[in-house]
C-alpha cells in the first residue's frame, strides 16, 4: 500500500542512512557518550561541553569499531571541540545554502549500543551573527525545534537534502537546541589546527559606554592593563574609544566583534577622542591571558 506518507518516511530514513557514515559516538565523559561528525579526513568535531577529559578519549566509528582519539583543541565560546583520529572517515557533506525558519531539520547521533539515531524537527528561527553567553561568536543563530537527547549533542544537523548545516548543542541556549553553523566550525578547526586553541583577542582596557557632547557614542577607558596592548599603543585612561578597525564601537560587544574579525597579532587602528580632539593610534591585538 504505497502512500505519500510512506514515501516521505522512507526518504527521511534514506537521508539518515546516507549521513550515518560520517557520524561517530564520542566517549569523553562519564555516564553519557556524545556524538561527533567526521568534518575533514581524520578530523571529528563535537560539542566542547561534552568533553570532560582530554585524555583516553575513544570514538565509536560508523562501522561499529572503536578507535582512540586525540583532543586537538576546542573553543568553549562556540562549543566546538576538535578530535583527531587515524581513520580518515567519510567527511560530512556540508550545506551550501543557508537554512530558513520552517525547514525540516534532522539531528543525528550515534551510541555504542544502538548505532545511529535520529530526531526530526524544524529550524525555528534564524538570524545573523550571534554572541553566545560563553563569549564566542556564531556566524548564524540557528535555533532548532527538536528534542536533543543527552547523547545527541555534537552530532550533525541536516537539512532535507541530507546536507550538514552544523552540529547540535544543547549548551548554548536555555530555551532551545542550537545548530553551531558549519562556517563557524570551519573557522574554529582552522584555528585549532594552526595553534591548538582559539586565541581570544585582548586590548587590556576596562571600558564604559558614554555619549560624547555631539551625541556620538563611544567607550571611555576606565582602566588600563600596565604593559597591555592598549597601554603600549599609547592609550590613556580617560580616552574615549569611538572606532576600532574602522568600525564604530558603542558597546563592549562591538569590541569583541572587531577583535574577532582581525585576530591576535594584527595591528588595528583605534580612533580615540582625547581632550575633545580625535587621535588615531595603532594597537597590536594581544591574546587574552589565561585563554587556553
Amino acid at each position: 500500500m504505497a502512500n505519500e506518507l510512506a514515501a516521505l518516511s522512507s526518504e527521511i530514513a534514506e537521508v539518515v542512512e546516507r549521513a550515518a557514515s560520517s557520524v561517530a559516538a564520542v566517549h569523553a565523559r562519564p555516564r553519557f557518550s556524545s556524538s561527533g561528525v567526521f568534518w575533514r579526513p581524520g578530523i571529528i568535531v563535537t560539542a566542547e561541553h561534552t568533553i570532560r577529559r582530554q585524555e583516553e578519549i575513544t570514538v565509536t566509528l560508523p562501522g561499529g569499531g572503536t578507535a582512540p582519539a586525540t583532543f586537538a583543541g576546542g573553543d568553549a565560546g562556540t562549543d566546538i571541540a576538535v578530535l583527531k583520529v587515524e581513520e580518515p572517515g567519510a567527511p560530512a557533506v556540508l550545506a551550501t545554502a543557508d537554512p530558513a525558519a520552517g525547514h525540516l531539520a534532522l539531528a543525528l547521533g550515534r551510541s555504542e549500543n544502538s548505532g545511529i539515531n535520529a530526531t526530526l524537527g524544524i529550524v525555528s528561527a534564524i538570524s545573523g551573527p550571534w554572541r553566545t553567553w560563553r563569549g564566542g561568536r556564531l556566524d548564524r543563530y540557528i535555533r532548532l525545534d527538536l528534542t536533543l537527547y543527552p547523547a545527541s549533542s555534537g552530532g550533525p544537523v541536516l537539512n532535507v537534502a541530507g546536507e550538514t548545516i552544523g552540529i547540535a548543542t544543547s549548551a548554548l541556549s536555555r530555551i532551545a537546541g542550537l545548530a553551531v553553523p558549519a562556517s563557524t566550525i570551519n573557522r574554529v578547526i582552522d584555528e585549532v589546527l594552526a595553534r591548538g586553541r582559539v586565541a581570544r583577542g585582548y586590548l587590556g582596557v576596562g571600558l564604559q559606554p558614554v555619549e560624547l557632547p555631539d551625541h556620538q557614542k563611544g567607550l571611555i577607558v576606565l582602566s588600563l592593563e600596565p604593559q597591555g596592548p592598549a597601554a603600549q599603543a599609547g592609550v590613556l585612561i580617560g580616552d574615549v574609544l569611538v572606532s576600532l578597525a574602522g568600525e564604530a564601537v558603542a558597546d563592549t560587544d562591538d569590541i569583541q566583534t572587531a577583535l574577532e574579525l582581525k585576530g591576535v597579532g594584527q595591528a588595528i587602528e583605534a580612533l580615540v577622542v582625547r581632550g575633545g580632539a580625535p587621535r588615531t593610534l595603532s594597537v597590536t591585538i594581544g591574546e587574552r591571558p589565561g585563554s587556553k
Partner: protein
Amino acid sequence: MRGFGEVAERLRRSTVQVHSHSGRGSGSGVIWSADGLIVTNAHVARQGGLEVELWDGRRLPARLLARDVRRDLASVRVAAASLDAAAPADSSTLRPGELVIAVGSPLGFAGAVSTGVIHSVGPIGGMGNRPWIRAQVRLAPGNSGGPLANAEGRVVGINTAIIDGLGVAVPANDAVYFVRSGPRPSLGATLQPVSAGSVIVDLEPGGAAAMASLRAGDLLLLSPGELYDALDSGQPAIRLRFLRGAPSTDRLPVREAVVRLGERAAEAA
C-alpha cells in the same frame, strides 16, 4: 495526501483500552487477531480480572493468556468476532528516521495520537541484550501496551516505557514470537546489577529461581546481560554460581544452583 489522520483512524479501531478490576491504572492494547487475541504489556495485564474496552465503547471481560515479564508482553483474549486486527510489520527492517505514529489512551484520553520518528533500534543498558525501539514520540502513562505503527499503519512495536523522554517499544517481531511461542524463559526474580554480578532483590513465588531454592539477597556471579544470554540459550536448565551470606572478611563458599526453565514455558503454551 493520505496523511496521519487516515492512518490513525484505522489504527484506532485496532487499539483497545485494558482496565484491571483491581482498579489500579489502565493501559492500551493491540487487537492481534479478529477473533479476540489482544497483545499488551505485562505491566498492564498483571493478573486475571481484566476488562477490555473497544474503540466503539463495548466493554468485554478478558482472560489473561500469557505474560513475558522480561519483554514486558502479555496476551489476553476476549470473546468477540470480526474485530479489526492490526497488521504487524517486520520490525527488523526498521530504520532511524522512519515516521511513526502511536495510538493509545494516555492519561485516559482514548484514541489519542502522537507522531514522530524512529530514534534508534538497539539494546538499552540494563534491559537485556535484545533490541528495543526508541522513538521520538510523546507518550504518557496509558500508552503502555498500545501500538507504535509506521506510515502505512502497520504495527512496528508495542509501546512500553518512556526513558529520557523517548518512547520505548518492544519490536513487533518479538510480539509475533511471543504470541506464537509463548514467553521466553524467565528467572522469576528481580535483580540488581552490582560490580561482582547480580543481587536477587525479590523472588516471584513459584518462579524458576524460587523453585531452585535461591533466596533474596543471594549474589549471582554473573551480570544481568550474561544471565539473559544464558536464559535465551535454549537450554532446559542453567547452572548459576552464587554467594550467600553477609559479606565479611571471611571468604564465602561459591555455591551452585540448577535452575530449570522448562516448566514455565510449558505452562504458557
